[in-house]
């Protein structure tokens, strides 16, 4: 039997798996498809917009005891972020803190907490933004005053659009990078760095970006593209390899359709497999299935929202007219995005009275209810931070439970 089943391969499921593996647990990760890592920029938002997000979260925890950050605790966030930095270094992705805004493709800046180094490599205040002729996913004129377009060899004659992943594979080739650098260099004209959409290398991005910067002569930095996200794909692919090399069972495909409950414990999950359902059993289960977008919550046109695997109680407003604010870009966010399942400070699901429902079941990430309050982060502005903090806390608790269990068994 496995020590742990993690359901979901988005940010929180992948990070929980990595942490559990570090603690020596036998893990099975089951997911319907690949999660949101591949449609997000691939950086870590703790509380976007804050120069010192950790201090901001400390303040938040004092004010909002129901926020996932408060339930997981500041130590879980800090230790989780520390773990993720070291883990990403092991994958040759070396996420690092950033003390300035990073450029986006639309000419604004964002303030995530940890980024792959290529997002933070801009230097000076005169970047040159480079786009690719005929590529409809990025228009450099939207990014800043100084922009230019180059022609990528081999792409003009293609019958259909290139994807970011196609381009990233091309950038893994040194000859392709030489040809790009030769076109960019004459355009510099005093530019202090060069911004490109995040497509510089898939297998070996750190070497590709270093090489391109050397050849151009100024730092080259990346900006998030439209999906699929190459930085997210790099992270997913490298995590997958690391997991398989370390004997994690990774089952991406068929969905978990229910949790299996025996004597008040979650003893495993059932997968809607080909031909017949398949059951998998473990000592503990983590639900990292996401919120409404990720598929961890379902809704209908009558204003109901429910959790489909165990019918866990969802905190939500049953009046559908109050799910959305009038303004699409309302800075307070829309109430619907805050709905979720309440957990205690051990990440176990609780009911409205605060009673723990199942003590070997843990929730991570966007599935957890976020309080909708003033001066609190939008759920999208703290997604990865919450994923990491809750995953760290859940695995810390469940691994302690496992070792207590084995100690008491050894004593009998």
């Amino acid at each position: 039997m496995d020590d742990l089943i993690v359901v979901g391969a988005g940010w929180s499921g992948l990070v929980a798996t990595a942490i559990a593996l570090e603690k020596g647990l036998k893990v099975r990760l089951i997911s319907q498809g690949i999660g949101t890592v591949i449609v997000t920029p691939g950086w870590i938002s703790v509380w976007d917009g804050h120069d010192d997000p950790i201090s901001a979260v400390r303040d938040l925890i004092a004010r909002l005891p129901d926020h996932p950050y408060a339930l997981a605790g500041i130590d879980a966030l800090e230790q989780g972020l520390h773990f993720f930095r070291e883990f990403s270094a092991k994958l040759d992705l070396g996420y690092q803190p950033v003390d300035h805004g990073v450029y986006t493709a639309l000419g604004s800046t964002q303030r995530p907490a940890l980024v792959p180094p290529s997002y933070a490599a801009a230097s000076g205040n005169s970047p040159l933004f480079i786009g690719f002729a005929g590529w409809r996913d990025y228009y450099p004129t939207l990014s800043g005053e100084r922009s230019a377009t180059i022609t990528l060899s081999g792409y003009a004659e293609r019958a259909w659009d290139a994807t970011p992943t196609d381009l990233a594979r091309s950038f893994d080739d040194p000859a392709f990078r030489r040809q790009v650098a030769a076109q960019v260099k004459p355009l510099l004209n005093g530019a202090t760095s060069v911004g490109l959409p995040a497509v510089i290398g898939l297998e070996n991005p750190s070497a590709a970006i270093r090489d391109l910067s050397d050849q151009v002569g100024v730092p080259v930095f990346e900006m998030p593209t439209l999906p699929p996200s190459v930085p997210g794909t790099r992270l997913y692919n490298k995590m997958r390899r690391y997991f398989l090399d370390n004997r994690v069972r990774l089952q991406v495909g068929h969905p978990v359709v229910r949790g299996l409950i025996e004597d008040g414990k979650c003893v495993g999950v059932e997968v809607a497999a080909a031909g017949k359902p398949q059951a998998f059993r473990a000592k503990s289960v983590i639900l990292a299935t996401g919120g409404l977008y990720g598929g961890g919550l379902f809704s209908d046109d009558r204003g109901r929202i429910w959790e489909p695997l165990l019918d866990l109680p969802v905190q939500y407003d049953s009046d559908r007219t109050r799910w959305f604010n009038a303004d699409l870009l309302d800075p307070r966010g829309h109430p619907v995005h805050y709905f979720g399942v309440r957990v205690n400070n051990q990440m176990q699901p609780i009911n409205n009275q605060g009673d723990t429902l199942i003590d070997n079941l843990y929730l991570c990430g966007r599935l957890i209810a976020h309080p909708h309050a003033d001066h609190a982060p939008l759920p999208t502005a703290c997604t990865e931070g919450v994923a990491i903090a809750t995953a760290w806390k859940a695995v810390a608790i469940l691994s302690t439970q496992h070792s207590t269990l084995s100690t008491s068994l050894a004593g009998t």
Partner: protein
Amino acid sequence: MASVELRELPYLQDTPFSADHCVKCNICTQACPVMAVTDLFPGPKTVGPQWQRFREPDLPSPDQSLDYCSSCGICTLVCPHGVRVMEINTQAKAELAEQKGFHLRNWLLGHNAWWGVLGTPFAPILNWLFSFAPFRLVLEKSMGMSRKAPFPKWAGYTFRGWWRRNKQRQSQAALTAGAPSVVYYHGCSTNSYDPRLGKLAVKVLEHQGFNVIVPDQACCGLPMQSNGDFNEARRFARKNINLLADFARQGIPIVGTAGSCIMALKSDYEHILGLHDDGAKLLAAGVYDISEFLLKLHHEGRLKKDLSAIDATVPYHAPCQLKAHGMGRPALDLLDLIPGFQAWEVDADCCGIAGTYGYKAEKRQIAEDVGAHLFKRINDSGASWAVCDTETCRWHISGMTGKKMVHPIEIIAQAYGITVDA
């Protein structure tokens, strides 16, 4: 706790309609192993859910590039929204094939079940001929059959022949009072090219105390389905349903050693060939991959524990069509029970051969490039052999790496001390 709601609306599960779940996130696009190595294929999202909207039953297909889809099904697996991308594409490919009309090479590849049996008496000549370079060149030039593709060797006898000659084994087993029964589905490859595997499987099942039955059975139909001949594939599917569903009805498990054939019985009959009757559903629920079956016995405490140690660490490739079962990696979980033995899974989606895809001259290079990462990691591992559950993948990987490839059951048999003649 209250009852759990239905997860999906049933009509959106129907293969063509599942396209409506697509949000164009492109997760399948970045994962497609074919798109990664060729400009000839615009990707699963484009030819699948996107072009599905332009496919009318009476109109010609909008684009031929669909033909480069290998039907490995990685798109369906990575889709977080439940779109049956590969199934949509396989159905559309069949319409494309129908529009194009008869294609000799694809017809030959689709009917390999016949050539296996018909060729058996002529094994020495055929094995020589298919390794004779000028003959392979003629096959490539005349009909587009890649001269680099690995043809299996005819064994010179069939598994079914061996089974018939061992009648007393059957009657003796039938006399074992109260022994539970299990049906062995051997598939075409085991029958004609690798009967040894079938004999090992029978003995391993008998070792668990089963009375093994080998009833009449047909090719699963997958090679015809892959080559767009759905009428012929359905004919074979119907045969299997007629021959085997009754066993499932009686609760007798049907166990196979060919991961992709078993997947056809489990899922393709319904979701690709569109057979929705009770027989198809009974059969789907009653078939097992042999590792899946043995692991189930283990979970029930019924697997024989006399597995002796094998000291080895080897790479394992989970074929794309085995991943499509949604049963995890039962071979790895099973092999973990052998003391001293460690198999680790390579981070590769597909070896590239995808059934008969890599046998086609115009697709051969794609098949080699798709598997390049897998071949490199197997070569770099230092192991002299590796494990894989499906036959064409084993032939392809072996041809590209020079390493010996074995089916998981060969290792289990060795651990039990079970041997058979070649």
